[in-house]
């Protein structure tokens, strides 16, 4: 390790790669922490965890008993076992006893991305509440048409403060904190929407995954979704080939299908729709009569005809990688798929998950430098190499099924929570610190003057 520092001094190793070397070693050796513990005040399974995006210091958790709690990750409230174990108690909680608290389970609790002064909670009592952190009061309330499964806010947003809400209703609603009203309603899904995620490369793009198994990409400046992911549209390799693969057959329909982007496909769907309608009709070749006969769809709404599914089941989790190029989706068919966002294709990476929870939404997380994906699989948390799909770590510690994983990339710690009401900390096994301590203890023997 001192050799690495010497290389950095002499300039043989660049600062980024020096830092990444340590981070990747730490992130690949996670185990249940014996130094740090969160004292969870929740009386129900913890459904949502998020570390704040500005400092990486505060952890927000939401649970099934309607309580949301905030913990300080870096400073412990008290120490046990003569200073070796740091206990982190929650700084405050808002629960059912609170006069404006949620009445049913909280399914999603997220920080306001700009600072930690606000946080947003979504609950099964069909409300989304925005809370002021310092006074622990609910500032704005939004009433949704159904149980709220997930809320999300864009971390890149410069010009909007919209909360995207996925509920059991088929429409995704965007709520504006500044005005207190709904700004957008996105229709296209055919069943409830269980997972919502903003893009990490553009503040206008939203990804939603529904209970019908479809994943849709929405640009909120336009009407309708611009892409629906289809698991049979595949590409072999993590980037699409420079030359297009040879066309599967010369038939016009399949040629339209295999072309890039959703536009041609949607047009061909519209053509088929009108084609079949006019074939059944008798004499009307005029556009006006066709319009009256068949509900003419706005080009943005053509996507409702597209029934491609990304999973054979409910899409329970979505996570976009930090470089904005790939999207991970978890489904109740116990598969995790990696999608190339730009081409919209399935990269056919197979992650060796055994079984994933099917009835509830799960929260996955990714780490950048050793490119790992952390996924809760029933009672264990597995980490997979993102480009190989192989299991690198199996973390067993929870007594019941795990719901969320949250990776703190500043400290390379993983926080997980589950149905056993615990929030567990997994930290690197501290071999580097031991090395440094050993070196410090060896004093300079020549320094003996009084």
């Amino acid at each position, binding site marked *: 390790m001192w050799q690495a520092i010497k290389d950095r001094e002499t300039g043989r190793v660049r600062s980024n790669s020096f830092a990444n070397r340590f981070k990747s070693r730490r992130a690949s050796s996670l185990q249940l922490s014996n130094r740090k513990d969160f004292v969870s005040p929740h009386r129900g399974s913890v459904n949502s965890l998020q570390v704040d995006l500005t400092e990486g210091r505060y952890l927000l958790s939401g649970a099934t008993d309607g309580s949301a709690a905030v913990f300080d990750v870096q400073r412990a409230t008290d120490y046990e076992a003569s200073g070796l174990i740091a206990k982190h108690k929650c700084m405050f909680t808002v629960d059912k006893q609170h006069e404006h608290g949620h009445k049913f389970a909280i399914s999603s609790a997220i920080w306001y991305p700009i600072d930690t002064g606000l946080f947003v909670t979504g609950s099964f009592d069909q409300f989304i509440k925005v809370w002021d952190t310092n006074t622990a009061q609910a500032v704005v309330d939004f009433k949704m048409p159904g149980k709220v499964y997930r809320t999300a806010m864009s971390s890149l947003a410069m010009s909007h403060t919209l909360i995207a809400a996925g509920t059991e209703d088929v429409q995704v609603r965007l709520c504006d904190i500044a005005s207190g009203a709904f700004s957008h309603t996105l229709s296209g899904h055919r069943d409830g929407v269980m997972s919502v995620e903003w893009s990490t490369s553009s503040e206008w793009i939203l990804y939603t995954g529904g209970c*019908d198994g479809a994943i849709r990409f929405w640009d909120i400046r336009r009407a309708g979704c611009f892409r629906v992911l289809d698991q049979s549209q595949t590409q072999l390799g993590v980037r699409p080939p420079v030359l297009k693969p040879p066309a599967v057959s010369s*038939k016009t329909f399949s040629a339209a299908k295999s072309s890039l982007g959703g536009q041609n496909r949607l047009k061909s769907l519209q053509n088929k729709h009108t*084609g079949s309608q006019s074939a059944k009709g008798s004499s009307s070749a005029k556009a006006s009569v066709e319009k009256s006969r068949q509900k003419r769809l706005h080009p943005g709404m053509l996507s409702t005809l597209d*029934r491609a599914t990304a999973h054979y089941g409910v899409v329970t989790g979505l996570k976009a990688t930090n470089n904005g190029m790939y999207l991970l989706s978890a489904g109740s*068919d116990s598969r995790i798929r990696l999608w190339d966002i730009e081409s919209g294709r399935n990269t056919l990476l*197979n992650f060796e998950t055994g079984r994933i929870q099917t009835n509830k939404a799960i929260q996955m997380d990714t780490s950048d430098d050793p490119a790992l994906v952390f996924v809760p699989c029933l009672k264990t948390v597995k980490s997979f190499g993102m480009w190989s*799909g192989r299991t690198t770590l199996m973390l067993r510690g929870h007594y019941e099924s795990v719901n969320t994983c949250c990776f703190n990339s500043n400290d390379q710690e993983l926080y997980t929570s589950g149905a056993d009401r615990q929030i567990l900390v997994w930290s690197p096994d501290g071999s580097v610190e031991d090395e440094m301590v050993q070196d410090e203890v060896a004093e300079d023997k020549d320094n003996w003057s009084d």
Partner: protein
Amino acid sequence: MKRTNPEPSASGAKKRRGEEDDEEVGCSHAAVEDGAVSEDQCLPLEDELTFSDTSVALRMMRAQFPRIDQASVPPFILQSQLYSSVNDRTQVDRELECLRREKVVRVFKLNTGQDDHAVIFLDDYLNQVDRIVKRMEEKKQSDLEIFKWFKGHVLDSKLEPSIGHHELFSLLSLGGNVKDAHITLLINAGLLTRQLIDPDMYWFAIPSIGKLWKGLLQGRNELLSLIKRKRHKEMFLAELEKKRLRFSPLDVRFHIRDLIGSGHLKTVQTTSGLIVRIPKD
């Protein structure tokens, strides 16, 4: 060929490799197939659990598919069997995709409730469709051109396991005038089934798979309960191979490969051979 445990003697290895090469060549000839099956039942599963390549694995497993006389089902391989036979799952997925695009194999989704996909060589499937047409001709069924259009237009261009109603109609219309009765005929023959979640979509299906499908589900349960009943929930692979399943016409190796690939069983290498055990999580 990948070996899971080192051969005791070099001559033994050469002999076994020779046998397996014969089988590989033999599987393309139907006459030698029966001989290949009986020869290879004396070869333990431990030695040929993994293969180097998906297409090699597909051919070997097709050769080992049990011959059942009552049901005329083309030999199929489950995707979970491929996962247990080749080390890298992503490689399996990608090679299977390549084979599918080159129209060497076809993938079907089985409705067992889990994510089961069956892989069938396209030649076997087309032979099966021809057999169905012949059987229907004997029963004096009319409108048999629909099968020709199905083979020529639909199977040729639609490589996914499911198809929408409009697309099916339009592809079949490329052959001639299509009526709803024709589609009913295809469903009765067992080539298409309606999807339960979406009334407008069909799954491509393997005809007369019913008995084997039931045998698959029951055989899985039987094998798992066999191992669960043991004290430590584990068994030697060599011992497990010799068991005979009562409820499934498919043989034990088929089920073992399938269960290892879908994660219900785990193999551990020990000094006395491979052990199969039920994983704790």
